[in-house]
């Protein structure tokens, strides 16, 4: 792509995170938001949201069907409810558009596989929203790659959000028709992404357990509020993950710790700090970071995507990575609902 040219962006759907993403896309120096679109047969409230966002951003509203046939759109950002992510992503890919899909990119293994096949047949730039540009995660990755930690042995990650369900859209999280259902689908992608990014190992078996005894809203929808997931991975590495929503949990609980063969590393996103201890000359340090704001992280993500569109680099995470994670999330849901471990065959 011509590096002097703006990237013309269409946002498909305005159901959930779109209102957070749109202002950042609008103010990105290389992006131009050309419109907000929604399917013409979508529920009225979804169309109303898309029109509202278009008005707020001072841009046009389109039907998705019309928008995808336009030649003046380079990138489609899919921000519908999760259960429509796959179908719209496939439509956009088939229309030859580069895409960014909100997480999770699919709500079933079947959808994840279908999306993976579709993107593999294209040469488009495609990714999904992730948080791997968090400075603490980046430093942790550098530390592992430098060899100072040795080989990762076990990882422990906690991802407990303190945001109220109402603030996050209520039924958009708990409604199976909209989200696929529950906090495993909603949150597991983030810590899972960190595990896969830091280790580059494949999970071989998923052991998940979940409940909804602390949330009447989740229980009423028949979905989980809290979950523990143990991943047995290649090379005998193990990841222990806790996800969910905890009322009044301060700023949430977001921690990562890694025991390596030559050291130990701990990241606390709440402070945020990264603590390291290794055998190297009794090396022990604690690095403090500035609290990142979402806008800054999102811009780092967009810059990565723009760089790939310019042909300079590859995106940090491809849509195929997102499909793999969506598949693992689905396996975790299956494991939790059956109380049985599930083998990973992809």
């Amino acid at each position: 792509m011509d590096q002097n040219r703006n990237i013309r962006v269409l946002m498909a759907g305005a159901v959930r995170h779109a209102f957070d993403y749109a202002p950042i896309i609008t103010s990105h120096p290389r992006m131009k938001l050309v419109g907000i679109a929604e399917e013409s047969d979508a529920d009225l409230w979804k169309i109303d949201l898309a029109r509202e966002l278009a008005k707020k951003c001072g841009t046009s509203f389109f039907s998705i069907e019309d928008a995808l046939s336009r030649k003046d759109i380079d990138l489609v950002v899919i921000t519908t409810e999760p259960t429509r992510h796959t179908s719209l992503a496939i439509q956009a890919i088939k229309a030859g558009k580069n895409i960014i899909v909100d997480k999770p990119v699919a709500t079933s293994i079947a959808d994840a596989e279908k999306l993976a096949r579709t993107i593999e047949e294209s040469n488009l730039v495609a990714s999904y929203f992730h948080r791997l540009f968090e400075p603490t995660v980046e430093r942790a990755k550098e530390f592992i790659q430098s060899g100072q930690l040795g080989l990762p042995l076990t990882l422990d990650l906690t991802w407990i959000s303190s945001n109220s369900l109402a603030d996050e859209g209520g039924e958009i999280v708990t409604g199976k028709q909209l989200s696929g259902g529950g906090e495993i689908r909603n949150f597991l992608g983030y810590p899972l992404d960190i595990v896969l990014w830091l280790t580059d190992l494949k999970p071989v078996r998923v052991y998940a357990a979940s409940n909804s005894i602390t949330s009447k809203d989740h229980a009423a929808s028949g979905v989980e509020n809290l979950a523990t997931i143990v991943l047995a991975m290649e090379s005998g590495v193990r990841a222990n993950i806790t996800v969910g929503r905890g009322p009044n949990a301060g700023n949430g609980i977001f921690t990562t710790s890694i025991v390596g063969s030559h050291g130990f590393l701990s990241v606390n996103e709440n402070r945020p700090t990264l603590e390291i201890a290794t055998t190297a000359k009794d090396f022990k340090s604690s690095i403090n970071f500035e609290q990142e704001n979402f806008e800054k992280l999102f811009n780092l993500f967009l810059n990565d995507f723009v760089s790939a569109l310019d042909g300079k680099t590859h995106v940090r995470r491809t849509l195929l990575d997102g499909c793999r994670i969506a598949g693992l999330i689905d396996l975790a849901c299956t494991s939790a609902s059956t109380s049985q471990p599930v083998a990973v065959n992809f």
Partner: protein
Amino acid sequence: MPIRVALVGAGAHGHSHASAMNYLGTNGMDIKYELVVDENPARAAILAAEFKIPHSGDLGLLSSFSGDGVDICTPTHTHLEIAEICVNLGLPVLIDKPLSQNFHDADFIINTFKNAKVPLQIGYSTRFDPLLSRLKQSISDGVIGIPGLVTINHLQGYSWANGWSAWQQNGQKSGGRIIHFGIHDLDFACWVMESRPISVRTIASKKIDQAIASWTSYSAQIFFESGALALVTGNWDVIPANYWRKTCSVIGSTGSIKYDSADDEISLSSQNTEPVGYLASIINELKHWRECLVGNTEPIVSLEQARMSLALAVAAQNSAENHGATVQIEEILHGSK
């Protein structure tokens, strides 16, 4: 008259207890060790010299001990023999966890003491950690509503095969590391969730030193009767060797609570005037034992709870041996192993 008790075991754990007892004595608490016994007379002599306690290398000397109780700080596989000596003498006992390396012997010890009406307490010192006991109290007080999930992560520096604590790696002597070390956190999970564990599945591994005859890390998912969950993880492979850290968080229906030993505080309150750490746990445990011995209070660790925690630990260990297969706690409670 002070409460006079004997200490059996002059190893590392016995030394911690002697230090804690010394702290209590110098702070006006009327309880003291009047005898230390260890099968290794030289080790007993060293500890005795440091804390100015009469000592012996002969367990038989206990039979002429006329004190108020016996504190057993020996390796797990010796508990049964020493406990039997004490119960036959009618001496109340504080015995280090786990009560036994197998559930059968643990039940035998409990029933023997119950039948003889001799008080028995099991030393789950984690429950006496000042901050963790406040965490538990907050939950009991309803501060976070219904507890739904507890996660506990314990990280400890590595050891090597056949090193100074080799008996802890030997399943015949300690039950294995999940039972020996993990039981603290498995017990704590049951205690804070105030619910009966129904089943557990455990994935475990050993990494740095393959010659170690026991797991060096584990991840246990526990399912409670209330519907609550626990994820209890431990790792004894951590480098540097002197590393020690514990984190715990509990998510409830109206709030959450978290603890990190690196912070030496819990998030609900930053006020901290109590001593913290392992020694403080032992001090509080011995102080509590003293109150039980004089009849002022009932043991914080009931025999049924101690029995259940051991059943959970044995189940977790069995699950680990069977590659994460779910093990029902009832199988252990009513089984033979």
